[in-house]
């Protein structure tokens, strides 16, 4: 696997298309990189005439098969950048293909920032919204909730505008829909004034951390932690406005201390040269600690021999996006990791039932084994979403074999 910066558009069709980790490899019949919205619409109209399917792709960081296709793949990399902004109301209209790292630099120049980020910022805006990508913090929902309006290309190849004030239910369905309702082109985002955050990382043993976990998660703006299976230690990661940080020196060892704008100090692994595979489930926040305890016990019992990677424990605020992991409930997410060069499925599949037993919903962009029959009971708005999808795309223009199995349509 090359260690050069990854780009969806750097691949040509003489080779298989692969995702960031290399775990997904497929060969679309063609790869288009439209530079404008009208070209996207024309591609969809052409696909409709020919009875073909079409899938959008962002930075291909996802390791689930949501964009795997043997037909038309559309990279949104050409529709990017900051188009307009309203500094007074902290809103900006940006291309759905904007990579978060690059977009953040433009927003910084305009005096604004995203409220939160995941552990990496290599995703595109459209990909992060469409898959419910999230960071951590009890007061922060996933990134899809910053979507308040925009434009998309429908299955008929028309350009449709939307606004959350005028069509709240449509936007609730659209946010986390991984390109099954249309192809997002321009997105209007609700942002924050630019500010700095003070990041501190502290190391301590597992049990002392769990004793004060609730307090830690409530007194920091952003809080999450890693658990390391081969030392039973944790590293807590706390971000706060400068001057509002906490001192945990009495029971933990300070491992990192830095201050900067959110896009520089929240994502920490955007440039990670070594690939990994990941499974993540979100569950009601109150179930998170017990679930982690059971995962820890199982890993120590069965998996320590082959798994050295940490687990990541994060908080997500409840939202109302119909297919969001955090729909209707404050949530905790737990992520499992394994080196991409090592076997990972047996490990993931052994632990997946524990997360499901705690009400877990899988991350759409990461590894999981669920299909429609198992997913439908997890999402109260599942049937309404499917009805809307059928109404918007009766011909299945944006579906693939994988998505038909995932959604049951």
């Amino acid at each position, binding site marked *: 696997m090359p260690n050069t910066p990854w780009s969806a558009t750097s691949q040509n069709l003489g080779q298989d298309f692969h995702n960031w980790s290399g775990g997904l490899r497929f060969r679309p019949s063609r790869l288009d990189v439209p530079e404008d919205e009208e070209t996207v619409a024309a591609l969809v109209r052409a696909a409709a005439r020919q009875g073909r399917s079409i899938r959008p792709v962002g930075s291909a960081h996802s390791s689930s098969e949501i964009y795997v296709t043997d037909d038309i793949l559309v990279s949104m990399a050409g529709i990017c950048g900051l188009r307009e902004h309203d500094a007074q109301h902290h809103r900006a209209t940006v291309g759905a293909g904007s990579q978060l790292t690059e977009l953040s630099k433009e927003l910084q120049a305009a005096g604004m920032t995203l409220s939160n980020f995941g552990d990496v910022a290599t995703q595109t805006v459209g990909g992060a919204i469409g898959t419910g990508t999230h960071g951590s913090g009890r007061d922060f929902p996933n990134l899809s909730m910053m979507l308040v309006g925009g434009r998309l290309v429908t299955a008929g190849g028309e350009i449709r505008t939307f606004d959350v004030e005028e069509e709240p239910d449509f936007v609730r369905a659209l946010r986390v829909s991984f390109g099954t309702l249309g192809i997002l082109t321009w997105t209007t985002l609700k942002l924050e004034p630019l500010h700095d955050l003070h990041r501190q990382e502290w190391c301590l043993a597992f049990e002392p951390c769990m004793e004060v976990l609730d307090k830690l998660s409530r007194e920091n703006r952003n809080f999450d932690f890693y658990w390391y299976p*081969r*030392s*039973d*230690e944790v590293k807590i990661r706390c971000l706060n406005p400068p001057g509002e940080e906490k001192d945990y020196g009495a029971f933990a060892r300070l491992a990192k201390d830095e201050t900067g704008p959110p896009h520089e100090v929240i994502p920490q692994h955007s440039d990670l040269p070594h690939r990994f595979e990941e499974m993540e489930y979100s569950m009601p926040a109150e179930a998170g600690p017990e679930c982690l305890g059971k995962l820890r016990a199982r890993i120590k019992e069965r998996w320590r*021999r082959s798994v050295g990677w940490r687990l990541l424990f994060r908080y997500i605020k409840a939202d109302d996006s119909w297919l969001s992991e955090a729909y209707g409930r404050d949530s905790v997410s737990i992520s499992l990791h394994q*080196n991409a060069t*090592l076997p990972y499925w047996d490990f993931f599949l052994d632990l997946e039932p524990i997360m499901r037993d705690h009400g877990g919903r899988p991350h759409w962009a990461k590894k999981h084994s669920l299909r429609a029959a198992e997913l439908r009971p997890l999402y109260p708005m599942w049937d309404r979403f499917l009805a809307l999808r059928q109404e918007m795309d009766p011909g299945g223009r944006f579906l693939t074999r994988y998505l038909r199995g995932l959604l049951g349509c």
Partner: protein
Amino acid sequence: MRAIGKRRWTIAGGRIPLESNGPEPEFTSRDEIAVLNCCDSPARLRIHIHYADRPAVGPYEVEVAARRVRRIRFNDLIFPEALPLDEDFGAVIDADIPVVVQFTRLDSGTASRIAVAAAAYAERNLQGSGR
């Protein structure tokens, strides 16, 4: 400060014990190196792990600050790939400046905890300084 040590060190008898007893991380069974850097500049280490039945993996890149000692548990190395426990391995450690490497193993999984320590094998420097 005068450089002490060598630039290439090797360990042939690596095998991280699988079982551990007692509070962790203090009593986690482990294979570990302690690296002493007496120089006035950081030492950059590149570690390659060799196995009995498959190609070597590496480099694992680690830095030891100037005039410091650092303990590195093989258990904790995950980039580019986590080492398996309970499997034979050897390690080749290359440093860009002379360092001293000592290897230790703690096996807390046995009834009586066992700790062993030994200097790693240092190769005569074929390139550059480090006498």
